[in-house]
Structure formats: structure tokens, C-alpha cells
């Protein structure tokens, strides 16, 4: 069964639209394994946060 993204979107606050769109995009481009594609996209997003954190921490040690 395909995910009804419209319905999911309606169930969520508008502030989440952007992230939901990213997830949907990853999902739609995921081919046979959409969950993996979404997982990869989210890992990339989290990795961005981690990199920022590491940079700030490194700056703090100077």
C-alpha cells in the first residue's frame, strides 16, 4: 500500500511541511527500498547537525 502523503501532511502541523517534503522526496526516489532512501537522507541531515556540533566543540578548545 502506498503512503497517502496528503493525509499524513494534513495530520501534521504546517511547520513540519518542509521535513515531510524531504522525506517524501527521498521516499519517492527510493525505488525498491524507499525506507533505506529515507534513512540515508535523514542520516545526512543528522550528520550535518553533528558536524556543526563538532565544529563548535573544536572552536571551544582553542
Amino acid at each position: 500500500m502506498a503512503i497517502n502523503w496528503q493525509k499524513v501532511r494534513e495530520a501534521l502541523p504546517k511547520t513540519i511541511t518542509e521535513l515531510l517534503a524531504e522525506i517524501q522526496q527521498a521516499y519517492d526516489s527510493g525505488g525498491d527500498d524507499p525506507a533505506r532512501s529515507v534513512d540515508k537522507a535523514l542520516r545526512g541531515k543528522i550528520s550535518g547537525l553533528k558536524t556543526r556540533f563538532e565544529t563548535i566543540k573544536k572552536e571551544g578548545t582553542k
Partner: protein
Amino acid sequence: MSAWQLQKVQVKNLLGFQGLKEQHFQPRIQVIEAPNHTGKTSLTMALLWGLTGIIPELPRINRHSFRLSNKHAGTDAEQFCVIELVNDSNSRMAIKRLYRGARADLDAELTVELDDKILSGQDAQMRILEELNVKPDSLEGCGVVLQDHRLGFITGKESDISDVISDMLGLTVLSRFVPTLEERLKEVKELQKEITNYLEAADPLKKWEERDQQLRDDFLQRENEAIEAGFAREDLENPATTAVRELAQIAASLKAPPAQPGRPIPDEIKRLRDHLATLRKSSPLGVELAELQGRKGQLSPWVEKAVSLRDAYRDFNERLAAEDGAGELDTKRLTDTIAEKETALQKNQERRDELASEKGLLTNAYSHMQSHQNLRACPVCDSPIKASDLLKKLKNRVEDQIASELSRLKEQQKTLSEEKDGAESRLKAVNRLKDKHGQLFAEISSFHTQVQGEPFCWKKKFEIDSLFLDADSRTKLVAVLESVAEQLNEGLRVVTDELKQKKAQIEQQEAEQYQPAEAQITCVSEKLLPVMDAAQKIENHGKKRDRAAQRKTELEQLQEDARTLAGQLQKIASALAQQEEETASAAIRARLPDISEFFRSVARNPDYDGLDIQTNISRDRVTYKIQATSSAIGNLNDTVGHVLSEGDLSAASMALLLGLASGESHHLGFLVLDDPAQGMDETLQANLAAAIVKFGKPKQVVIFTHQQSFAEALKQAGAHHSRIHSWKMGKVQDA
């Protein structure tokens, strides 16, 4: 997509089959009656493996010791499973898995023939999934249902039931998608926690404030020290200006050139210190003091040397005077005496040798004459001889005259030897004294050379050998040394007094001129400079504040971003779970009448005549609870495993399996069931047979059973019937 149906399966040397086993399938409902140990489980397992490449996780299968190979066939025997299928369009597909490994699972060579195409490997597996719409990791989804799973999915663990039902409802994508989001959500939350912990433990601004406070405390301490040293508080408001002003005043007081504008204060302090050192060095008092110190340094060792030489020579002189009274000091005379004694000793020896010779001769003559006492004349000259007179004279000469002289000579030799030894011993003693005197005289001469030109230096010359023998000369030298020591002592006393006076003058100059300037320089250096340094550190540290504040803002923003992401993921996961639950609930509601009807028609349980599946969301996971219901008693809803008999559970599992898997999401053209009537009595078996035939979905249902009554019931209900009933040494044969 057209539904595929099983047409034939060939199994060679796999599981319970030694050699080739071939089983044909009918297009509609078919029952294959197979008593226990005839290989029906092997056949269904082979079908599963052939379609999916997977051996299911079953409690009764030990994954470590399990082997797909038939144990009687031998390791070199060909082992394979070929499944032939046909679809509504009359297309044909043959799936062949050639087993080549010692282990199960996918260690096989796969080929798929589809019409005129031949695929292999991963492409072939993908094509099977696509054509059959089967799910390799979902056993029910592949259309081959083992006994364990059929019962397991209604009485097993909640998570297992949820997985099976989600799959049969076609919700696997959703049910697997949410855990993915949750995994990442967990990661974000961990990051969020890490950021929070970091902020609490190492808040950049807090760290800055701690250091800032330290620096301010340090500044206050130094400021207080400067105030205690005499600086006014207002002077410390701009310590650099105060320092420049103070140093300018010091430079003026020392008559030093004015400082270059902009010169660093530490450099100016060094310049003034150097200038002060130069002033001290070049001061007349300083020069005189240095000269006096030099003169004192010169006189002090001379005084010591003069006193030392005077005392040593005076003692030696006294000793020499005593020795002079005890004996000869002149070594020449002593040497002459020794020579005289040696000559006398030699003469003495010669005379003693002559007398000894004469004594021998005369003794022989006396002996000879005694035998010739009658001789009256000399036999040579014929002179008359009186033998008795001759013998008397000979005896007198030997015994009186020679003996007396020899005795006197021996006495003389003893005396001479003693005198010679005495002279030699004295000579040695005098020579040692001369050596000692020589050393003393050399030291005195060296000192004389050192003090040459000094007013106290003596003019008189002394000769070493004369001094040794002449007591008057030695006494004069002692007097000279005494005089020199006295003069030197006096000179040293005068210089020491002058030095003392000079130091007092210099101290006065220091106290009046240099020390105030030096104290001022030190005050600036040790009191004002630290205040300036402390102020500079505060200023520098202040610049770091902006950066620390910026970092804190960045961290807080990052924390907020992580929190937002976590919150959003949480909401999306919840929304997706909600959608899954709603979809599942709707699908179940649509199928529940058929499911209940199937259960009711098979079980005919007087208390429970229906089934229900409750959906729920727990931690963003959709869970399912299968209950038996009663139409007579509305609130009689109980978990199936708690209230149904084994036969009824089999009926319930079949009702759920057929009811759920027959929905839109499944396109299976076939269903293979292994002993579906297990635990049922003959009545329930008949009911199940009738229900399966009546249900009609999917079109092809292959039922393996060991129950003859069930096989008969199916046959009666219209199913095609065949039988496997021979088993010998792992080799199965058809009837």
C-alpha cells in the same frame, strides 16, 4: 498482473528426497494425502526455498546443523529444486535453484526461464518477486504456509503477529518505515542529549565568566598592591600614562636623555636601569672604591704570606742554631773528614796485611828451626849460628812485637770507622736541613719578586749558602721579614680604613641619589606594570567574550534544531503509524465478515461464533490483538489462545490467513497449506474442507495432509486428490 499457478515441482537430493521427486499440481483445489514420514514437509520446505531462496526460522530447525542436502545422496550428487508455473496468459516460468553449498539459505545458483528469456542471479530473484508479488522475508506472503507459522501468527508473540498481519494487509512498507524514522529519531535525541550535556558541562560563556572573574580578581589584587606601594587610585585608572610620567621624572632626576615617544615601557625601564648602572660605575667615589678594593685584595694575601714566611724562617733559624751547636754544618768539611778517615782506614788495613804476612813467614821459620836446633853455622855463608838465640828472637818478634802492633791497629781501625760513620750521618742530616732551607729561601725569593717595587720591599741581598752557615745573616733576614710583615699589616689597616670611609661616602651617595631613583624604577616595574598587564589581559579576554557568546548561541541554536528535528520526526512517525493503524483497521473491518463467517462455518463453536482483530498504536507501532467474539453475548471478547481449542485455533488461523491474504494487496494465484486441519476432529475437518472449497480464493489451493479423513472430506467437497505413501531410505515414491 496475472496470477501465477504452480504446475510442477521437481526436487532432487534435497531434504527428505533421495534422487528425483516430481510433483504435479492441479489448477484449482488439490489435496495431496501424505501420511507421516512421506515427505510433505520436505516438499513444502523445498517449495519455499525454491520460491524465496530462504529456509524459514523455525524452532524445530537448528540453523547451525541444518543441511538442505539429502543425507543419503552423497556430497557430489546433483541437488536442485525446479518449480514450474503458468499464468492466466498461458505464459510459463521455470525457477531452478541448484544447491551448491554445505549451508542453506541462498547458497545456490538461480536461473529463471520466463517464456523465451533466461535470467540468473540477482536479476532472476528480482523477477520472481516481481512476477509472483511474493516477499522473500515474509513466509505467508510467498503462498506457502507451514504448520508452525499458520498457528504461530495467531498465538505467537505480539510483534510476530503484527509483522504477519501487516504483511497480509499489504502494510509492510508503512510498518517498516516507521521504525526507520524511529531509529533516526533516537539518534537525534542522543545528539540533543549530548549537546545539552556539553552546554551544561562546558558552557562557553560560563567558562568565559569564570576566567573573567579570575582576571578581575587578579587585577584588583595588583591594584591594591600598587596603592600600597604609594600610587593614587586615580593614577591607576590609566596605569600606562602614569608609568610614562613616573619614568620621565626618574630620567630627569638621573639626568638621562628623555625617552623616545611611544617606546614600550619595559624598554624604557631597562634603559633607565642601564643608565643608573653606568652612573654608578663612572662615579669618582666608585672608581676610588674599586681601586681600594683592588689594593686590599692585593695586600691581604701579602700580609698572610709575609707573616707565614717570617714565622717559618724564624723557627728554622732557631733549629739551625741548635744544630750548629750540636755539630759541623759545613758539608765541605764533613766531606773532607770522611775522605781522611777513609785514607787512614786504608793505611791501617795495609799495615795489618804486612804484619800478617810477616807473622806467617816467621812462624814457618820458627817451626823449621826447631828441627835444626843442632845447627852451628849458616849453611850458606858458614857464619856461626846459635839456634836457641834465633828461636828466642823469632818467638819474641811474633808473639810480642807483631801481636802488640796488630792489636793497636785493630783498635785504631774501630775508632776510624766510627768517626767515618759519624761524619757520614752528620752529612746526611745537614743535607736535609739545606734542602729545607733551600725551599724556604725559594719562597722568600719568590715573595721578594712579587713585592718588588713596593715601599716595604727589602734592598739587602742574601746568599743562600752564606745564610745557611752564618747565623748573623739568618738573624738579619728574620728581622727583614718581621719588618715587611709589620709594614704590610699597617698598609692593610690603612687601606681597610680608607675603604670603610669610601663605602660610607658611597652609601651616602646611594641613599641620596641612586637608590631613590632605583626604587622608583622598581616600583613602576613591579607595581605599575602588573596592573597594566592585568588590565590588558582583561581587555584581551573581553574580546573572547563575543566569540564565547556567539558559540553559546550557536550551540543553543543547534540544540533547538536537534529538538525541532526530533519533534518533527516524532510527529511524522506518529502520523505514519496513525495512517497505518487507520488503513489496517479499515482493511480488517472490510474483511472481518468473511473471516468470521469462515471461522463460524468451520468451528461452529457454541460460545464463540466470530473473530475480531483489535488494532492499537503502541509507541508508534501498530499492534494487533486477535479475539474470539460471541454474537449472543456482546461483550464476550477473549484472546483466541485463551479460549479456543486446538481445532478451533486451526479454524481461526485458516479463517484469518485466507481472509486477510485474499485482499487487494495480495495477488497470489496459489496457496500451499501444510496440514491445515491439524487438531480438528472429523466434523471440523469436513467443515474446513467445505469452507476452503466454497471460499474460492485463491484459485489454486494445494493442501498437504496426513489426515485421511480430511483428504476424503476435501475429495468429497470437490478437490482433486492424490497420495504419497511410500518412503524408503529417504526415497519417496508416488502411489
